[in-house]
């Protein structure tokens, strides 16, 4: 590192800073240090640094599966935001299994990650106290809770389900149904949908819950089963736009008019919602925004700043297009 400092004409501490927190170094200086690093082929040992400072500069991130488009958007933005601040993301997949999540948290703690990002607010028994006694920042995403473990960036899935249901009733629907994954965040949406249905005197919302991961090809058969069982259903709210697109294709295949015979509502506002035919009404949630805010909150906390409010509700918005 001394050689790099000499070649770049800067102090040792500047080289260290350029490597560890590039955002704190003036662009010209940063360029000079990077040029010297490239020229000399210098490789800082970040592992050794992590033992000395007891900082690994790694954030552990747990997601159900990275194949899920909205989750990928969150991880994309999180990785980018933390990367700009000199942190790397270590990724692991829980496959929607709370026990796997708990086990992977142990691995991350053993890796001395500086912070942990979790998906959702429902975890295995004991994980909360385990994380709270770990002393590192923990950030939950993609749902809302009155008792977060520590930090939280998300929105209320219950309220989103309620808003989707209200939109469907406002559009004249009388008997909504639900297609989603058999996991906590879908359950919260369904509870919200049931709450608004009850207000409209509909005591029961038929639902199809798919063992995760729910894929586009699952939607058609589930919609057909739903309508065979309950022909009075005139609207369906799907837990994500991919399932809603699958439902739209099924309607097309069977010649059911949308929204004439059945209204279809998605969730997420993925690009396919705007592109499909008919264009999909949906609940817009900005997955990228969740990752970006999560990254900013963690960088602030890791820099020693305390947040006035540890909970960020990024909200959601009902977007009406052609399918409702």
């Amino acid at each position, binding site marked *: 590192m001394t050689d790099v400092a000499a070649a770049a004409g800067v102090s040792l501490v500047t080289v260290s800073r350029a490597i560890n927190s590039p955002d704190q170094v003036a662009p010209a200086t940063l360029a000079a240090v990077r040029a010297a690093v490239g020229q000399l082929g210098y490789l800082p040992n970040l592992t050794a640094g992590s033992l000395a400072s007891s900082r690994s500069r790694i954030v552990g991130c747990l997601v159900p599966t990275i194949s899920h488009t909205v989750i990928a958007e969150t991880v*994309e933005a999180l990785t980018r935001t933390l990367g700009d601040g000199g942190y790397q993301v270590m990724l692991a*997949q829980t496959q929607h299994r709370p026990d796997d999540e708990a086990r992977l948290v142990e691995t991350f703690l053993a890796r001395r990650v500086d912070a942990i990002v979790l998906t959702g607010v429902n975890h295995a028994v004991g994980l909360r106290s385990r994380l709270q006694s770990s002393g590192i920042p923990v950030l939950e995403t993609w749902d809302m809770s009155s008792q977060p473990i520590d930090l939280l960036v998300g929105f209320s899935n219950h309220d989103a389900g309620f808003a989707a249901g209200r939109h469907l009733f406002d559009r004249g629907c009388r008997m909504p149904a639900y297609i989603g994954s058999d996991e906590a965040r879908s359950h919260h949406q369904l509870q919200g949908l049931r709450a608004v249905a009850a207000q409209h005197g509909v005591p029961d919302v038929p639902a199809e819950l798919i063992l995760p991961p729910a894929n586009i090809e699952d939607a058609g058969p589930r919609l057909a089963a739903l309508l065979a069982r309950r022909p009075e259903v005139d609207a369906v709210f799907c837990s994500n736009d991919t399932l809603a697109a699958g439902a739209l294709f099924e309607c097309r295949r069977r010649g059911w008019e949308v929204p004439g015979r059945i209204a279809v509502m998605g969730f997420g506002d993925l690009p396919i919602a705007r592109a499909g035919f008919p264009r999909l009404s949906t609940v817009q949630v900005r997955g990228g925004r969740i990752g970006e805010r999560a990254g900013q909150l963690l960088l602030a906390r890791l820099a020693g700043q305390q947040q006035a409010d540890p909970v960020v509700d990024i909200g959601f918005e009902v977007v009406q297009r052609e399918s409702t």
Partner: protein
Amino acid sequence: MKAPELPDGLSGPVRMADVARVAGVARVTVSRVLSNPQSVAPATRAAVQDAIAKLGYVPNLNAGTLASSRSRIVGCIVPTLSNAWFAETIDGLSEVLAAAGYQLLLGQSGYGPVAEERLVDTFLGRRVDALVLTGSERSDAVRTRLAAAGIPVVETWDLGLEPLDMAVGFSNYAVGESAAEHLLARGCRHLGYIGADEQRASKRLAGFTATLARHDMSAVPVLAGPPPTSFESGARALLELAERQPRLDGIFCSSDTLAASVLFECRRQGWQVPQKVAVVGFSDQPLAAATVPSLTSVQVRSHELGAEAGRMLMRRLGSASTGKPMGGEHRIADMGFRMVARESA
């Protein structure tokens, strides 16, 4: 924060020896449960895990790193996670690594060689045991760096002439040839191409046009902008293509996203698919089978590419517990591709 309550006779910090004593096993067994749980009998594993939970023990895997000069971390750099292909590849890679006791460090290059160079340096600085990269085109700086580092490297999603070390992928050029042959066999004679402005897509275009040239034909190419491609850019590109090639009767799209947006736009324009224009996509995403009409696409197994990359690395690195490389090493895995003919072409 409240420290966990410790059983009698113990005071923190809790060490591995304490866990071994409480579980009634040897230290090496505790170590094995931590690094490679599958290698320990379930009952013993449960006893050790109970002791770990009771004592609140957190092993320091990084300290082990310095002793063994193994971090058991694999770095993976993809252009962007916004593209479902790469997310699926990471999914497959992550499954194999997790089962072998390795963790995955993730980086996004945004399709830029400079960003990739910087991430490679960062990951090498973190002493990753291996790297997984996307594509086969590398800057000289990265090649030199990786050769000097001496760790296993797998390049994915393409097969170049000279892989840095190992490669798992398919020939993007041959994918383009195959798409052209399929459209020609259907009788299409006025062809177009819609693709992202990116290296691997360009190779597919090169294979496509070379095959047409052998039949004394050419294709009108329309670039849909820098990747990742979007539904909006596909619809725009179709209209431009139809203007430049008025007798257009067949299109090869460099991604299923573009192909699906072409299907949607054709429907909006009232153009029958495949009667007026046939459409072939690439990668065979789940979307392809679901659309109406269903999409003909060239299938590459994104998830399996990642899993195979993981298996190649694990063969080279050996299982985490023994550290001994296993046999059967091979450097290049051509995963091939398959034309899946559906309704659109």
